[in-house]
């Protein structure tokens, strides 16, 4: 009976993984524009990085502020390997080069992880930050190996092409990243389904109890950390091949913070959360940074809003709709959702207006006081513009209050019905 139960699940799994592979394969066909390929490559790398980060935060309950250490050092070792191959010191296919990054990540995971995983919770977070700062300072201290501020550049087209792959064209690099992303994804998912993966969850939920069923929680965290560092290193290796440059920025606190934000926005509680987060974060970074210099502020606000109102992330927001959909009650939520969306848009418009206007004022651009916002000419020195923005914010706030009450009332009613139905 128990063997039978797993069959349909396995089938579902094949479908999901098949679809993922197909998506990776077909994504570049979306458009010929070269920036699409740039975007997709960046997403692929961040997917691996965010998933590896979630092995710590989501699965092991370890909040790290220094995960870029492993990807960054992985990238540095890859760049040196690549340069050595380029000089003809030894032969190694570029296709497998991310493995060098992974092994470097693993090695540093073994070293630094030993110190950080002695603690858990808040102390772990602080130590990971300290290690991150230490490595960053070291990178600047040894320019001979790390290339100082400017970093080390490389050329990925080296050696004899294997199977005709030169990695000159960006498309080939994309497929390299996609292949590694797919394999890493599958491997990291498989890891969640092993004794170590399951016990990492147990240690996250209740470390004390785990000690009384035979597990050394410190050891569980340590191993989980090392494996995670390996995949971070793979992501670093790929970024080295993709950008052909590695600099101190690769190990910086900014990178570590970025992967934390991406992972959290996507959702730490579900395996596919970080994938979603990586996609959204990359869109934010590439798409929005072209429009406004304040994109980091928007990202920060978005992150804070998620921490406050949706700590499970986007994946969780999607997942909790499924029971409602199953119960065929989703249509009742459409109207409240639409209202909340409208209110949210109003708030957002007011916010964007205010931010952009302040930004313009502070940008010492005394000459020009008129800016274009969404096709409108707005004079940032005129009172009416500020009044309009204020009115938008106030109205949006009030509308949001009502809409969220409406949503939560409907939501709770439906949940109650579903629970009563199940009991």
């Amino acid at each position, binding site marked *: 009976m128990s063997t039978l139960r797993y069959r349909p699940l396995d089938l579902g799994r094949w479908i999901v993984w098949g679809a993922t592979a197909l998506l990776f394969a077909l994504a570049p066909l979306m458009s010929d524009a070269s920036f699409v390929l740039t975007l997709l490559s960046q997403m692929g790398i961040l997917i691996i990085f965010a998933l590896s980060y979630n092995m710590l935060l989501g699965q092991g*309950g370890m*909040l790290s*502020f220094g995960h870029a250490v492993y990807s960054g050092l992985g990238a540095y070792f890859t760049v040196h390997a690549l340069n050595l191959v380029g000089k003809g010191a030894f032969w190694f296919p570029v296709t497998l080069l991310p493995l060098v990054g992974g092994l470097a990540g693993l090695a540093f995971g073994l070293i630094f992880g030993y*110190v950080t995983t*002695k*603690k*858990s*919770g*808040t*102390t*772990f*977070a*602080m*130590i990971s*930050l*300290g*290690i991150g*700062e*230490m490595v960053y*300072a*070291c990178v*600047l*201290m*040894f320019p*001979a*190996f790390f290339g100082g501020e400017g970093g080390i550049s490389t050329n990925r087209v080296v050696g004899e092409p294997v199977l005709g792959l030169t990695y000159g064209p960006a498309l080939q690099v994309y497929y390299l990243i996609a292949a590694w992303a797919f394999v890493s994804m599958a491997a990291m998912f498989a890891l969640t389904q092993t004794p170590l993966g399951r016990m990492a969850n147990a240690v996250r939920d209740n470390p004390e109890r785990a000690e009384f069923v035979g597990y050394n929680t410190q050891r569980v965290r340590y191993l989980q950390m090392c494996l995670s560092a390996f995949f971070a290193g793979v992501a670093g290796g790929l970024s080295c091949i993709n950008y052909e440059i590695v600099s101190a920025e690769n190990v910086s*606190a900014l990178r570590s*913070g970025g992967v*934390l*934000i991406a992972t*959290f926005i996507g959702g730490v509680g579900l395996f596919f959360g970080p994938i979603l987060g990586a996609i959204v974060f990359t869109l934010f970074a590439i798409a929005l940074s072209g429009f406004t210099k*304040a994109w*980091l*502020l928007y*990202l*920060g*606000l978005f*992150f*804070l809003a998620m*921490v*406050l109102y949706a*700590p499970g992330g986007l994946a969780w927001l999607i997942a909790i709709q499924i029971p409602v959909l199953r119960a065929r009650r989703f249509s009742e939520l459409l109207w409240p959702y639409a209202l909340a969306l409208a209110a949210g848009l109003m708030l957002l418009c007011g916010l964007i207006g205010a*931010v952009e206007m*302040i*930004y313009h004022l*502070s*940008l*010492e651009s005394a000459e020009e006081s008129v800016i274009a916002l969404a096709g409108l000419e707005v004079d940032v020195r005129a009172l009416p513009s500020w009044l309009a923005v204020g009115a938008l914010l106030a109205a949006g706030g009030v509308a949001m209050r009502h809409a969220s009450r409406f949503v939560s009332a409907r939501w709770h009613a439906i949940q109650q019905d579903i629970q009563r139905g199940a009991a």
Partner: protein
Amino acid sequence: MEFFLVQLLNGISYGLLLFMLSSGLTIVFSLMGVLNFAHASFYMLGAYFAYQVSTVLGFWAGLVVAPLLVGLVGMAVERYGLRQVHKHGHVAELLFTFGLAYLIEEAVHLIWGRSALEYRVPPELDGPIFQIMGSPYPMYRTFMMLVSVAMLVSIWLALTRTRIGLVIQAALSHPETVEALGHNVPRVFMLVFGGGAALAGLAGVIGGAAFVTDPGMAVSVGPIVFVIVVVGGMGSLAGAFVASLLIGCLQNFSISLDWSLAGLFSWFGWMVGPDTPLWSLWNVKLSQAAPVLPYLLMVLMLIFRPKGLMGTREG
């Protein structure tokens, strides 16, 4: 000798400044279990607010008003942010303050721009105050120490003479008993968080004028303050004090010494030169390694004494 004394005084004044930051962080951590990632951002806000006030009302008004403003910001953050995420646990709180730090930095970019401000020491505090073996010692450094010591004394008085102070003390020694004290706990939390922020703000006012006021000042001092809290022992005020002075002195001495391992080896008679393996490691000057030392200290402390200098709790 003269060099030594000047560096020692500089180290102590910087250490006292660090303690102004780490004390607030420690008290908030002990009482609420919240590690405030944005603590150094309050430090930065203090400097920026003080600059803004000083352009209109002068330095001395800034010294008073800016910490109060930062305190108010801190109370608002506790009331409308932290309290909401409290139910999701300490990791969520940490994430919240992390996001906040991010946001404050971006807001500072937005309002004051990315370059450093012209926030300077006021003329009446500029210049030397006394001579140490013939070399002048700046008045502002002395002023920094005075403010820090005044603050130290007032913290001590507040902790020992007021009701909130007694609650905090109880919380420091027995964190689990806070709830049982029968005080209006949320209000105490809000006041303490605001107080910690105000302390950081005060440190920002005097630190901003002494060093530099730019959007990177939070990021540059924040990790050091965390190191102090770990090295001193999580939740120990006395430990934070010792660690602050230690790291203040460590940083001041190391940046002005060009000792290196190669030098040490040659002292023992081993000659290492550019052909020796790992030469770049042996040849690093202490002054170059200065940024790494606090973190190295933290790592060593964790390996050999995980509780920290004066900690009583295992993290």
